[in-house]
């Protein structure tokens, strides 16, 4: 169990103790072959209430490492206004860029573990690449809502502290043709939703074989 899950568990436990009305949602996801979907970004946007105000830009941080000539993580969801750092842990230099509409940035060739960061202040999909390594790709999903999560390897994810009500559930994955959206109502203390999605083949560029034989 990851630290985050523990934290969620602790929060749920504490709210129950304090008597606050907050619900949780368990999400599971399968593809067309009944295989669990990991790295699926799931977010909820209330339909009948205003979103909580956005945090001060830069008050939240996230990290996308350049390690072993790959971005890590491959998919990350962040709240709008998060400062994402791109540390280069490799011996070789990287040229990180994004040509996306929400965030068009360019971190010219850099190396030596120098951390460069970008504040992502617009919601949307920010694909990040390295100009000199075509196979390096990372997706930063920038979300206005505070209620978002990502499925783990077993295809499950959980959300807590959800006020009851109707939500627009959105799911995004690199292998989805279109983002998935559906309406969901949170009414009980614990809710669950199972999402079935049709995934396309993984179309990432095959990594060029390296001296140590690594590649996809």
């Amino acid at each position, binding site marked *: 169990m990851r630290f985050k899950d523990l934290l969620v568990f602790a929060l749920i436990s504490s709210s129950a103790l304090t008597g606050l009305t907050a619900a949780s949602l368990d999400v599971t996801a399968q593809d067309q072959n009944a295989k669990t979907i990991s790295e699926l970004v799931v977010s909820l946007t209330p339909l009948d209430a205003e979103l909580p105000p956005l945090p001060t830009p830069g008050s939240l941080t996230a990290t996308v490492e350049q390690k072993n000539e790959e971005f890590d993580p491959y998919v990350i969801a962040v709240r709008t206004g998060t400062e994402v750092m791109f540390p280069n842990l490799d011996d070789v230099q990287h040229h990180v860029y994004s*040509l996306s509409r929400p965030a068009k940035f360019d971190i010219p060739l850099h190396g030596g573990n120098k951390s460069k960061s970008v504040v992502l202040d617009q919601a949307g999909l920010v*694909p990040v*690449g390295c100009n000199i390594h075509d196979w*390096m*790709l990372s997706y930063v999903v920038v979300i206005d809502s505070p209620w978002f999560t990502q499925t783990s390897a077993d295809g499950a994810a959980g959300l807590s502290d959800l006020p009851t009500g109707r939500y627009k559930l959105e799911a995004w994955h*690199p292998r989805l*043709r279109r983002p998935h959206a559906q309406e969901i109502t949170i009414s009980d203390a614990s809710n669950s939703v199972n999402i079935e999605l049709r995934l396309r*083949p*993984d*179309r990432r560029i095959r990594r060029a074989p390296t001296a140590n034989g690594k590649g996809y």
Partner: protein
Amino acid sequence: MIQLRSFRSKLLALSLLAVATTQIATYFIVDAVSHREARAEISENLRVAAIAFQRVTTERISLIATSATAVASDYAYRQNYLEFIEDPQTLQSAFTSASARIDADLNAWVDLDGITVTSTPAATDENFIETVFRADESEGARAFGYVEINHELYVIVAVPIRAPNIGAWWIVGSRVNHALAITLQEMTAIDVSFSNTDHEIVASSLPAATRTSLGQLIASLPADPNQIHTLDLAGESSLVKVLPMSLDSGATFAAALQYSLDEKLEPARRLSRLILLITAGGLALACVLGLGFARRLSKPIQTLAAHTRVITAGDYETRLHLNRIDELGDLANAFNDMSSGLAERDQVRDLLDKNVSPEVAAQLMREGSGLGGEEREVTVLFADLRGFTTLSENMPPRDVVTLLNRYLDCMAQAIEAEDGVIDKFIGDEIMALFGAPIAGENSALRAIKAEFATEGVPPLEFGIGINTAPVIAGDIGSSRRLNYSVIGDGVNLTARLQSQTRNPEFALELEADHFLLVLR
């Protein structure tokens, strides 16, 4: 039916027939085998060509795809493509330059929704959507397809523009043109033609006349890769296989693979001509050899036939000289042996005639000789010259022999005239038989008539004894020497009767039909 009368023409006809049959059979067998082989070879070539065709087009478009991917990965293009996609004019002009770098004939942009943003030549969304969809669904994010735009055929590839994720599709294509057809032809030695959905030939490696000819027929040919059509193209017999090719629109166009049967059969035709030539030569040779052989065979046969006629005419002396060591030579030798045999037999007969009476000779020739005899009634005649001893003493011996021969000759003629047979001459005495060896009627009377016939011929005096008695008649003697003769008491009695004629007291008197010996 022609009747060949002469042996020579029969032999000639036979040898010609043998040669002609063999050669004509060879010709037809070679022709049939060549045709079958050529067809099998061509269909195999066509099969290989169909594979090569797929291979070449795939490789060609792969090359373009790889180049396009390289160009699309250019950071400058990546950086700007989002702006370009908002400004199709600039996009088109920028990528016209890019497509020129990779030698593409078709250049189009399709967004992630399948909308054709821009295309040169002008195209609709439907032209590319299928290929883009397949590319989008594939792991390699790349797909090939065939499209028809303005009656022209293109083989296209969709490659993604990654910035760094897939943001749009770049479609590049190569026109299916004569150059492609010629490249394929050079690789496979099979001519290739492509016809569009209207059955118009848009690209071909064929010469213009053949192309036109194929163009008139192609609409009627079913596009079945398992079928091979035999067509007459501009006067040349060709085998054609039509491969159906699917367009992204779902329609089909055709790739016709063609191989000239005439061209393939040319070596076989040369061989056939050679065989015909050999046939003609063989027939001529068979003619000459057959004639010569027949002549060599028939000439001695004619000579033999001529010689047979010589023998028939009674010439046993002429000999046949063929100077051959074969069967005909043996035959000639046998003929010569036969002539010798006939001559010998003639000689024997002649000698026999002189030494025995003609009747005995005839019987001997007919029945051969053998010891033994038979009892029969024979009239025996003995005649003896009177005073011959005295006469021979007073005459030179040669005159005696001449006289004696003359006497005996006259006597023999008279006896033989009455069917008598001279049994033997005993000096000046004659023994003759009537009724043997051939029985005759009135042999006694004949003997007397014979005697009377001789009467008065020579101025000689002789005594005669005649007696008819049963005697043993036959070949008498040793196995090496035989005489036809008779023995018995009757013979002795006859001899005694004759000797009694020396006695002047006896005379012969004729009374009625028999003689009487009377005392004077």
